[in-house]
């Protein structure tokens, strides 16, 4: 091997190591802070407040059981789950038909409709909670899970429309047409042919809607004063509560997110590929 080959081989090897090192570093950048939260959440209250901190968890459920017994927190957790589930159901129920329409039909208001959907993303939506708070008091929707779920659906439905649009576009129209020639109506062709194919994707976008609602802080804090959701409850008590309670709360907030992102990971990129256009 000549010397220049040797040099370039070395350079390539060094580049390879740098590449791997960067990947490892960026993974650690994401994982280490999460790990530290878990250490805190899985340690007793005394350990969380003591100094210096150990980098290993005690696997003590003290903080978490204190969290579970804390006044009002289980209700907040329940509220969060209810609102997120409602958001999930509503955004799919009204979003998926629109996604189907966008992928299958040419119609006159299509451009306007797409603009409306895209516009929602260019606005700071949580601010909508301010006027809605007043509107809800007038209509009796204040302090209800449904009222907050409406606002969260506004956040989630543009995504539901765009994601289901991309999913439906991925299923050839010919499949449906074949079903029609074999005697299916539009509806039965949809339920028997398209729906089974699309179900995993729909589930993924439903989960995405759930996560959007589960994580939302501002609108939740504005719209629920008595029936706090978990994020609103934690926000309200940030200044006052003991520090181990915050970490236990953070842990409970993060846990479902980890599972959900894992469940939808295959669809994340397909979702955004189409949403770019």
């Amino acid at each position, binding site marked *: 091997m000549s010397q220049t080959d040797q040099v370039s081989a070395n350079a390539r090897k060094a580049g390879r190591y740098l590449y791997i090192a960067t990947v490892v570093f960026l993974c650690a950048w994401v994982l280490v802070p999460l790990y530290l939260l878990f250490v805190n959440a899985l340690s007793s209250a005394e350990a969380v407040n003591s*100094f210096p901190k150990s980098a290993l968890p005690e696997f003590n459920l003290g903080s978490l059981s204190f969290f579970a017994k804390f006044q009002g927190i289980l209700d907040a957790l329940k509220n969060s789950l209810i609102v997120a589930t409602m958001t999930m159901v509503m955004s799919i129920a*009204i979003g998926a038909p629109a996604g189907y329409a966008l992928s299958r039909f040419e119609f006159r208001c299509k451009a306007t409709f797409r603009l409306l959907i895209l516009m*929602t993303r260019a606005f700071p939506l949580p601010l*909508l909670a301010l006027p809605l708070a007043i509107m809800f008091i007038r209509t009796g929707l204040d302090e209800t899970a449904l009222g907050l779920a409406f*606002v969260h659906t506004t956040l989630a439905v543009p995504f539901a429309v765009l994601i289901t649009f991309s999913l439906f576009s991925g299923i050839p129209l010919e499949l449906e047409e074949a079903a029609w020639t074999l005697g299916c109506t539009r509806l039965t062709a949809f339920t028997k042919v398209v729906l089974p194919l699309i179900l995993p994707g729909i589930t993924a976008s439903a989960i995405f809607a759930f996560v959007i609602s589960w994580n939302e*802080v501002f609108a939740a804090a504005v719209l629920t004063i008595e029936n706090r959701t978990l994020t609103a409850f934690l926000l309200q008590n940030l200044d006052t509560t003991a520090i181990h309670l915050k970490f236990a709360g953070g842990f409970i*907030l*993060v846990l479902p997110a980890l599972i959900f992102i894992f469940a939808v990971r295959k669809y994340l990129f397909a979702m955004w590929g189409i949403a*770019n256009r």
Partner: protein
Amino acid sequence: MNARYLPYVLITPVALFLCVFFLYPFFLVARQAFGDGGSGFSLDNFRDIFSYWKFNTTLTNTLLLAGAVVPVQLAMALLMATMVSRMGKGRDLVLYIWTIPLGISDLAAGIIWLAIFEQSGFLNSMMVGIGALDRPANLLTYQNAGLVFLAIALAEIWRATAIMLVILVAGIGLIPKEYYEAADVFGASKWKQFWRITLPLLRPSLQTALILRVIMAFEVFAVVAALGGTLFPVLMGETYAYQFDLLNSGAAAAMALVILAISIVATLIILRALRVPKGATI
């Protein structure tokens, strides 16, 4: 049912929903911001918020934070996306890890970084452990304004780079491989390929990613509440304070319009700066 009407039937629910819960509230917020409590038109609310001593700090803080965080995130997301596009083994695992923060709320992200920066937190433990400090310092205080800013910026970078990453990875996936093959034939280096192929063709995705991210940056709220509290006032936090601590919903509405205004200005700037030439497609 007649197929001609079917699409309209299918989009009606969303359209109605967005009219009631998106367009109408914006009308309400504008009316409230420009109202005087009665039915008249006035700029009192804006005069109120602009003359408040904290307003300038609040605005500068928000813009500074966005200005510090977004370029770093853009660079990181581009780096991560190009690295992932060359990855063979382990791609799925690495992508999953890198996209985890996508599912994590800003409040949780603030709490996570609080675990590191609080007085009995991990940063202090490490500093004392290696002997850089004698005893734990209270890091997030008024005296350490720089550190408060750093903690908030790190938490923001940690949390919201993933959303840009996902958009850019999807965008890179849309670029045909042939361009790179041709570049290889002509002997272009990877570096040159990145500047001459990836970046220009990624423009639509960069647009989406930047707009989404910048608007989110102007809405920053819970991360700041968890880490800085009142030490680092931002626009969204002040809006919340107007609504609840000062019970002045007119001023809160005016603040909302200010946030909306800077979001629109930023969106227009990004659209203009990264405009895709007419008729150009991949």
